[in-house]
């Protein structure tokens, strides 16, 4: 269990105390997007510390996945700025923000399902290994070198979730939970500084979920990266997140540590309706 306290940074945001002297890995200012006049996300301000595990929660349709799509530039924001390691990502594409350090998983799993588990991870390693088309076609020494590195790194990453044995299996044929884990491994392979997980525990049973929680912590500790996750499983969110941000109707309604969020009347109302607030 993390017992870190949240502390205020100059922008009034809260991050874990241990991350205070470092640039926040992710900062958004007044982020928003309109879909044909509808403000799907509005004035979204979030700061994530360098090694923080942060949670993004809210009722269905609150705009959580849209926020992920904005951060990864699947959608270009209508307003506001996103700072990654203090650098503005305006005008960047999905590919560029990934190279700059954001990796993600998807709510509806998006694996390269016809390819092997190992190939899925190797594709994640794409920008970590260097080998051009000609070296590949004519099997120059560089090809063999980079393939060897890719193979070793892929197995190493798979071992986080004890998936080395499945390396040759077809990704699409894996059980649901394993597919979710593979997506996380693939995202990690891109060597991110922040990992965005979209409902990582969806469809997992309680024992799988608790293993996942351990693994998320392990990933943070080993790679010293931040994790921002969307999740409906409150045990997971309250169990591992240090800072939690609650959104409803595209706007932030509360921010704080798990205890603050649990007792926040606005949050209870958003989840349970007015009557539940009593």
């Amino acid at each position: 269990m993390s017992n870190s306290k949240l502390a205020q940074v100059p922008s009034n945001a809260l991050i874990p105390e241990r991350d205070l002297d470092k640039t926040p890995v992710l900062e958004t200012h007044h982020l928003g997007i309109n879909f044909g006049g509808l403000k799907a996300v509005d004035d979204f301000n979030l700061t994530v510390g360098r090694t923080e595990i942060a949670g993004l929660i809210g009722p269905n349709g609150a705009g959580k996945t849209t926020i992920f799509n904005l951060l990864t530039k699947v959608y270009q924001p209508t307003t506001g700025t996103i700072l990654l390691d203090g650098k503005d990502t305006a005008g960047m594409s999905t590919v560029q923000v990934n190279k700059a350090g954001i990796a993600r998983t998807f709510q509806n799993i998006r694996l390269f399902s016809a390819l092997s588990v190992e190939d899925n991870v190797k594709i994640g390693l794409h920008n970590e290994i260097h080998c051009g088309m000609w070296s590949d076609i004519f099997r120059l020494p560089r090809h063999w070198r980079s393939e060897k590195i890719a193979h070793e790194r892929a197995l190493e990453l798979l071992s986080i979730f004890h998936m080395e044995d499945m390396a040759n299996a077809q990704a699409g044929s894996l059980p649901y939970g394993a597919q979710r884990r593979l997506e996380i491994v693939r995202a990690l392979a891109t060597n991110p500084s922040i990992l965005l997980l979209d409902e990582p525990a969806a469809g997992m049973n309680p024992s799988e979920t608790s293993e996942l929680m351990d693994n998320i912590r392990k990933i943070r500790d080993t790679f010293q990266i931040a994790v921002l996750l969307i999740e409906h499983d409150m045990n997971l969110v309250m169990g591992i997140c240090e800072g939690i941000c609650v959104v409803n109707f595209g706007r932030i309604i509360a921010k704080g540590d798990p205890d603050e969020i649990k007792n926040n009347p606005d949050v209870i109302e958003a989840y349970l309706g007015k009557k539940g607030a009593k």
Partner: protein
Amino acid sequence: MAFLSNLISGISLGSVYAIIALGYTMVYGIAKMLNFAHGDVIMVGAYMCFCAMNYWGLPPLAGILLAIIICTLLGIVIEKLAYKPLRAATSLAVLITAIGVSYFLQNAALLIFKADPKVFPSVVTLPNLRLFDGSLIISATSIITVIVSAIIMVALTLFVSRSKTGKAMRAVSEDKEAAQLMGINVNGTISVTFAIGSGLAAIAGVLLCSAYPTLMPTTGSMPGIKAFTAAVFGGIGSIPGAMLGGILLGVIEILGKAYISTELSDAIVFAVLIIVLLIKPTGLLGRKINEKV
């Protein structure tokens, strides 16, 4: 005067493209697929009408009616046998199947009617219109073509906006699942769409061959592809777009032939398609569709 004459033949050819484009655009709007075989349904319609008039001695109107009936049935059969089983498949699979259907129709026609071109007798027997002491001659076929396509256009717009089936078509095109939940017979609606599109293709086939009387098994493929271009040009899924795109494309083709190069006229038409898709992939009157992540 030569320009005016070219313009009129352009509008006339464009009207035919427009009728064909309507079929593409409706099917694309509702089934979200490019019915590559649509052009070949035109050819089938023209052959039917040709047979009715030449071999069976029927009057032109009966020939047209027969062509419409046969093509409507053909459209429904194609949809049921080839496309319906692939509702859930990738667009690549559906497109390849559609190409297979197109190829099948062409080669079946080749076996039945042989490769030699037939001379199609015009179904329009009215005299040509002579203006300015005969310096501008407008063929009756041109006039009828434009009038017929205008009528079809109005009728179809009314049908889609007013009738119950038309409303169902619009609902299915917006959201198949939601329409199903509202009690709309999605498969039936898609069948009706194919039926209407194919019936229109028969009319287009007869009009096309009345203006350009060479009838071959491949007669439909080029106009088919060009009409698809027109549908994209106007904005795929949009009925007025198909009309506008068709007429513009017909005019561009005829003027290109007259003033740029006869040999390269096809290249010019395809260049229009490419330019439109690159600059405004949604076409002149189309809507943007966002991909869901």
